[in-house]
Structures are given as structure tokens and as C-alpha cells.
């Protein structure tokens, strides 16, 4: 373990040194550039500030719009809130009390690690110019970033807003391997997976020159980038790590359902930032994204609750909140292009299909996707990514115009969804095997029985 940490620190130091020397070399070239940008900024400020109630500039020439910036600053906070503590509480309540701290720690520490990763190289490799599959090193350590420049919003804010997405994606996967995966393996997997899967996929869908972006894929807020990738990785890991000891034999009920409900509320509200902010502006499009988000969540929750009411005789609160999350995951890619009725349809389909995967198929094939990451996020993301092709059309209340062709778009969406899923599958399998062979993925049986809170973190959650 110590050799691993020493090795990582050495690698980091080497990387930082080479990154630093790149900054030095580039300084002279960018100094002239910065002077030009600064001059432009001063000219704009001189003209703009004098007028009260000015219109925001949105001509793509690099002006900062205060309204857009204000909203995306708020949206950034909302999306971070989704992970800490929204998702943390949602997952925390679902596990047994002896493991609640470990789940909270996974989400919390992933937040911290991803922040630094995004700064060091994640943002640059995801969202700068490079090739269609990966970005470049222009913004390593955010070198060359001008805090005052951006397209509508400052680039520093784009960095922050996108950072909250790279934070929540590996945090989502936690739900599949909780209660039995080693903390060191969680950190290692999350970090390397973010680099090898999240960053390239983010670049392909949202980055300049991205392969899927150029193809015309529709994914406003991350149905593909966040939910499909996390869902597929979750399925891989829950199978590779194996089921929890006593799975299907012992009772493993949620230890604190009120915590789950609280977490769901935070996720739902935070999703207004997730979808409503993904247009990167304070616009009617952003408002419509919020509207359809709400409709899809509510519809899916009603559908899941109704299914349980019918099948079990009793509608459960866990079913209700899970349904809402399914609807939220499904509307994520579609929230920029569908209308309210389309959102109702997406909510309905995701409620049914996610229920089927999480309840029927999971129990039939007996894999221990403990908190239904694949069943809800993976499948939900798929559903929305495919259905947006249909409901974006104006005849179904969508935002596209008469020249839009459902068939062609459907082809793009299917290619994107399955292509990314396949890529995620391959890398996740390789990474899981690699980590298992080096540091091991799973805690030993005794530690698992005692609980990860004590075994991995030396703490008990509830000391009266």
C-alpha cells in the first residue's frame, strides 16, 4: 500500500513538473494574447457599465453576461449539493447502519479527489481542443485561464459547473459496490475510471470537436456522459466484486429510509441546476429544461408507486422516491429538446422500464446491484437518450423544427448510447480486473461482517 502511494506521489510530481515547464514555455506566447483580451475587456466595460438595465451580450464573441453567470453560479452550487449531501444521504439511508459512514465517505472523498483531478488535467482533457476523442493539455492546472474571459459565462465558471458533473458520476457508481469494496480500491477505481472513461466521453459529447457532438447527438445534461457510463460501470463492478455476504439469505433492509427521502428531495431540487443549468445560461430554454425535469420526475414516481400498489398491495416510500430518480435520470439527456407531454411520456416509460430492471430482472439474474445504479441510472439514461429522438420532434411537442428527421436522430442516439456503453464496459472490466489483481477490490469476510465503518474508517456512526 505504501509503495502504491509513493509511486502515485512520484508520478504526480513528475507530471506536475512537466506541466509546469509547459506553462513556462507557453507564457511568452500567451502574454501577447492576454494583453489583447485585456484591452477588449476594458473597452467593453467602459461602454457597458454606464447603461443601467443593459441587455446581456450573447453574440459568442466572448462577452460575459451577468444574468447567465449568476444563474450558472447558483446551478453549480445546486449540482454540488446533489452529491454532498443529496446522493450521500440517499445512499446512506439505503445501506445497513454498520456501513453508513463508508458510503458517506465514498461520496465525500470522491468529491475532493475529483476536484483536484479536474484541476490538474481532467478539465483540459475533456473540454479543450484536441482530437474527436480526447482534448488537449492547454488547460492543465488551468494554465492560461483568464478569470475575466468566457463565452457568456467566465471559463472559470464552465470549469466549476462541469466539475460538479465529474464529481457526481463516480459517486453514483458507489451504490453498486457498497458494503463490500475496499476504500482504497474505491478511490483508485474512481480516479482512473474518471480519466479513462468519463473524460473521453465528456469530450466526445460536449467538448470542442467531439466526435458525437459533431455527429449531432442530443445529450443536454449527461444521459450518456453521466448516467449510461455510471450505470454500466456499476453493473461491471457489482458482478466483479461479487454479492454481499448473505445476499438473498439475510435481511438487508435500508437502515434509515427517512435519510433516503431527504436525499431524494435534495437530488430532485439539485436537478434543476443539473438540467436547468446545462444550457449554460439564464434563458427560456433553461426554464423549459426545469419544467420538463419536474414533470418527468413526478410522472415516473407516480408510475412506480402505482406498479407497487398494484403488485404488492402497498405503495412504498422507497418505490416512490426511486421512481422519481428514474424519471430524473431519463429526462436528463432530453431536457433541452422535449416538451411537457414528451416529459410525461419519458417519465412513464422510465418508471416502468427502470422498475422492471431493478425489481424483476435483478432478482431473476441475482446480481447484487445493491442500490440499483444500473437499474435506475443506467437504464434511465438509456431510455431518455433513445426517446429524445422521438419526442424532440415538433409533432410530439418537441423543440425541433419541421426539417428534423426522427429516424436519422434515432440512429445517432442509438449509436451514441451503445457505443459509449460498450466503451465503458470494456474499460471498466479491464480496470476492475487490474485493481483486483494489484490491491484487491473486496474487504475480507470478517471486515465485511463487522462493517466497513469500523473496518475501513475506524468509526461507528451511532454512538449513543
Amino acid at each position, binding site marked *: 500500500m505504501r509503495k502504491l502511494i509513493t509511486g502515485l506521489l512520484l508520478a504526480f510530481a513528475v507530471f506536475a513538473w512537466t506541466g509546469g515547464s509547459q506553462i513556462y514555455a507557453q507564457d511568452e506566447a500567451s502574454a501577447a494574447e492576454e494583453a489583447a483580451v485585456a484591452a477588449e475587456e476594458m473597452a467593453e466595460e467602459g461602454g457597458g457599465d454606464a447603461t443601467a438595465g443593459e441587455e446581456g451580450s450573447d453574440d459568442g464573441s466572448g462577452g460575459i453576461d451577468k444574468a447567465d453567470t449568476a444563474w450558472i453560479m447558483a446551478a453549480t452550487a445546486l449540482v454540488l449539493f446533489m452529491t454532498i449531501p443529496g446522493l450521500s444521504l440517499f445512499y446512506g439511508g439505503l445501506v445497513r447502519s454498520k456501513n453508513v459512514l463508508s458510503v458517506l465517505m465514498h461520496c465525500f472523498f470522491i468529491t475532493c479527489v475529483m476536484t483536484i483531478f479536474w484541476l490538474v488535467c481532467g478539465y483540459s482533457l475533456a473540454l479543450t481542443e484536441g482530437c474527436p476523442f480526447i482534448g488537449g493539455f492547454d488547460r492543465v492546472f488551468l494554465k492560461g485561464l483568464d478569470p475575466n474571459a468566457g463565452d457568456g459565462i467566465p471559463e472559470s465558471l464552465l470549469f466549476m459547473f462541469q466539475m460538479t458533473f465529474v464529481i457526481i458520476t463516480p459517486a453514483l457508481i458507489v451504490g453498486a459496490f457498497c458494503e463490500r469494496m475496499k476504500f482504497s480500491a474505491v478511490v483508485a477505481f474512481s480516479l482512473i475510471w474518471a480519466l479513462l472513461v468519463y473524460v473521453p466521453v465528456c469530450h466526445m459529447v460536449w467538448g470542442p470537436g467531439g466526435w458525437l457532438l459533431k455527429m449531432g447527438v442530443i445529450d443536454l445534461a449527461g444521459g450518456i456522459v453521466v448516467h449510461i457510463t455510471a450505470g454500466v460501470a456499476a453493473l461491471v463492478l457489482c458482478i466483479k466484486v461479487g454479492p454481499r455476504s448473505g445476499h438473498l439469505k439475510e435481511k438487508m*433492509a435500508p437502515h434509515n429510509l427517512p435519510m433516503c427521502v431527504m436525499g431524494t428531495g435534495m437530488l430532485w431540487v439539485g436537478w434543476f441546476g443539473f438540467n436547468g443549468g446545462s444550457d449554460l445560461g439564464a434563458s427560456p430554454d433553461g426554464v423549459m429544461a426545469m419544467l420538463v425535469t419536474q414533470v418527468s420526475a413526478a410522472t415516473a414516481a407516480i408510475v412506480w408507486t402505482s406498479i407497487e400498489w398494484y403488485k*404488492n398491495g402497498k405503495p412504498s416510500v422507497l418505490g416512490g422516491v426511486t421512481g422519481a430518480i428514474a424519471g430524473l435520470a431519463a429526462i436528463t439527456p432530453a431536457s433541452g429538446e422535449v416538451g411537457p407531454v414528451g416529459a410525461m411520456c419519458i417519465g412513464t416509460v422510465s418508471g416502468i422500464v427502470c422498475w422492471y430492471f*431493478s425489481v424483476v430482472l435483478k432478482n431473476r439474474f441475482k446480481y447484487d446491484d445493491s442500490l440499483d445504479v444500473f437499474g435506475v441510472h443506467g437504464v434511465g439514461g438509456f431510455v431518455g437518450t433513445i426517446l429524445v429522438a422521438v419526442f424532440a420532434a415538433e409533432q410530439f411537442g418537441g423543440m425541433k423544427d419541421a426539417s428534423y428527421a426522427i429516424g436519422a436522430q434515432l440512429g445517432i442516439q442509438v449509436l451514441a448510447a451503445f457505443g459509449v456503453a460498450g466503451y465503458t464496459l470494456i474499460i471498466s472490466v479491464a480496470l476492475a480486473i487490474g485493481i483486483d489483481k494489484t490491491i484487491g477490490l473486496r474487504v475480507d469476510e470478517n471486515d465485511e461482517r463487522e462493517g466497513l465503518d469500523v473496518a475501513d474508517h475506524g468509526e461507528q456512526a451511532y454512538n449513543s
Partner: protein
Amino acid sequence: MKKLEAIIKPFKLEEVKEALAEIGIEGMTVSEVKGFGRQKGHTEIYRGSEYTVDFLPKLKIETVVADDQSAQAVETIAKAAKTGKIGDGKVFVLNVEEAIRIRTDEKGDEAV
């Protein structure tokens, strides 16, 4: 001295406590337990995972009384704890060899 162990439905505690106080018995120890007799449990379903819960929450009341009060105490408990529905519980009577009040060192019947 006799020790009475009564397993009762949790919501009956106040009634039993008051009924015992009325006949002069004012000390007891109460613990939360789980158990079943002939009463069936229930089923819980969490996202498709079904659990049959056989053990139901009950309360165990333990109190030590003088020999001559024992019969009356048993009857009092049974009457107060009864609902007539399945799962009402049971009362057991055991012999006690010695009892000591820690504060005053009193022994025997004086201690209960």
C-alpha cells in the same frame, strides 16, 4: 419471593404499570424484545427484495414480589395486558433465592 416475567404488547405498558401500582407494586424492569408464539409475522418489500419478519416487537416486564402478593400480581398483569387478540403474550413465575437493596443493604421481602 417470586420473579414475574411478563411478555406483553408494547402499547400495553402504561396500563400494566398503573394496574401494578394500584396493588402496591411500584418497581419493575422493562426491556424491548422480539418474539413470537402463535402470532404470524409480516412481510416487508424493499424494491423487490422481500423479507418475512417472524419476530414481532414485544416488551418484557420483570418484577420481583413477595410470595403472598404473587398470585394477585399475576392476575393484575394478565388482566391489564389482555386485548383478547392473538399475540397478547405470557406471564411466567420463577422462584427468587435472595434480593438485596443496594442503597440500604436490606434483604429479603424488605428489599422488594
